């Protein structure tokens, strides 16, 4: 083992040069003075067009809906790749056979429903307060970690997780195609607008949020399950 830290000289010179370049660039940019023309237009019209109180959610789900579809594809590819790379035979599932104590088990059983509730709350309220599909989906996946602590493979059936993921992704695309069939455009906001700031408003946006949340949650929970089933260290 090296006891002396060696510095990578080429790397140091590179980042010094890059630092000078970034400093010059950011000096030119200035802070807080961006023209923001498209952003101002979206701020002014976003609430009225989609009926959502959260303009960032309306940008993510309707103005830049195609970007969201691309992001869902990327996440699906990454999760599928990770699952393929980490595929194990059945007997490796019981590798982590250390039984947890009573405190961990009881606390996990009490905590898990509240975490799920928090995740669903943030997903559903994505159009009236900060939140949305991605955040809530990530909370759902993180909530899955709690039963994972009490025993590997418990709490998530892999088949039902991939079923949820596939159905949610298909639902997202189906709602977009429905908007196309109604001659508004792919992934355009459809449905009754409602009043700003109420839970039942913004038409199809809560449905899109729910689809994204379930998909992201199931995918990341599947990745966590694969990571949790790694074999014992040699």
């Amino acid at each position: 083992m090296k006891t002396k830290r060696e510095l990578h000289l080429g790397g140091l010179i590179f980042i010094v040069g890059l630092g000078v370049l970034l400093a010059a660039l950011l000096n030119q940019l200035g802070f807080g003075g961006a023209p923001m023309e498209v952003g101002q237009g979206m701020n002014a019209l976003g609430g009225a067009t989609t009926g959502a109180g959260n303009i960032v959610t309306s940008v993510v789900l309707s103005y830049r809906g195609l970007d969201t579809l691309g992001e869902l594809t990327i996440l699906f590819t990454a999760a599928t790749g990770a699952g393929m790379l980490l595929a194990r035979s059945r007997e490796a599932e019981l590798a982590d056979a250390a039984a947890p104590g009573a405190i961990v088990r009881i606390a996990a059983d009490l905590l898990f429903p509240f975490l799920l509730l928090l995740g669903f709350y943030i997903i559903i309220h994505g159009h009236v307060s900060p939140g949305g599909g991605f955040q809530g989906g990530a909370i759902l996946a993180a909530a899955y970690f709690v039963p994972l602590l009490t025993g590997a493979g418990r709490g998530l059936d892999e088949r039902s997780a991939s079923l949820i993921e596939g159905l949610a992704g298909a639902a997202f695309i189906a709602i977009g195609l429905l908007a196309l069939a109604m001659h508004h455009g792919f992934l355009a906001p459809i449905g009754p607008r409602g009043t700003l700031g109420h839970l039942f408003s913004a038409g199809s946006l809560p449905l899109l949020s729910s689809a994204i949340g379930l998909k992201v949650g199931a995918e990341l929970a599947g990745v966590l399950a694969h990571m949790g089933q790694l074999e014992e260290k040699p």
Partner: protein
Amino acid sequence: MIWIVLVLVVLMLGSALAVLYLRDLLSAVAASAVVSLLLSLLFVFLRAPDVALAEAVVGAGLSGVLFALVVRRLPKGADA
């Protein structure tokens, strides 16, 4: 207001250096979770609550857990 931002930025850069230079891999993972937490506080200051929520859950939660699940399966001599 500027002092809060100063403290957050200094702590964040310090934790980033700790990610690279802490010898134990599990401590480096914890330092990266600290970086994500302070970054989400900076996002709150920049009036971006959705981004702060996403960064807090993903960076300080999922990312750290994924790393820790991998690191615990490795033997001790695999650090550098």
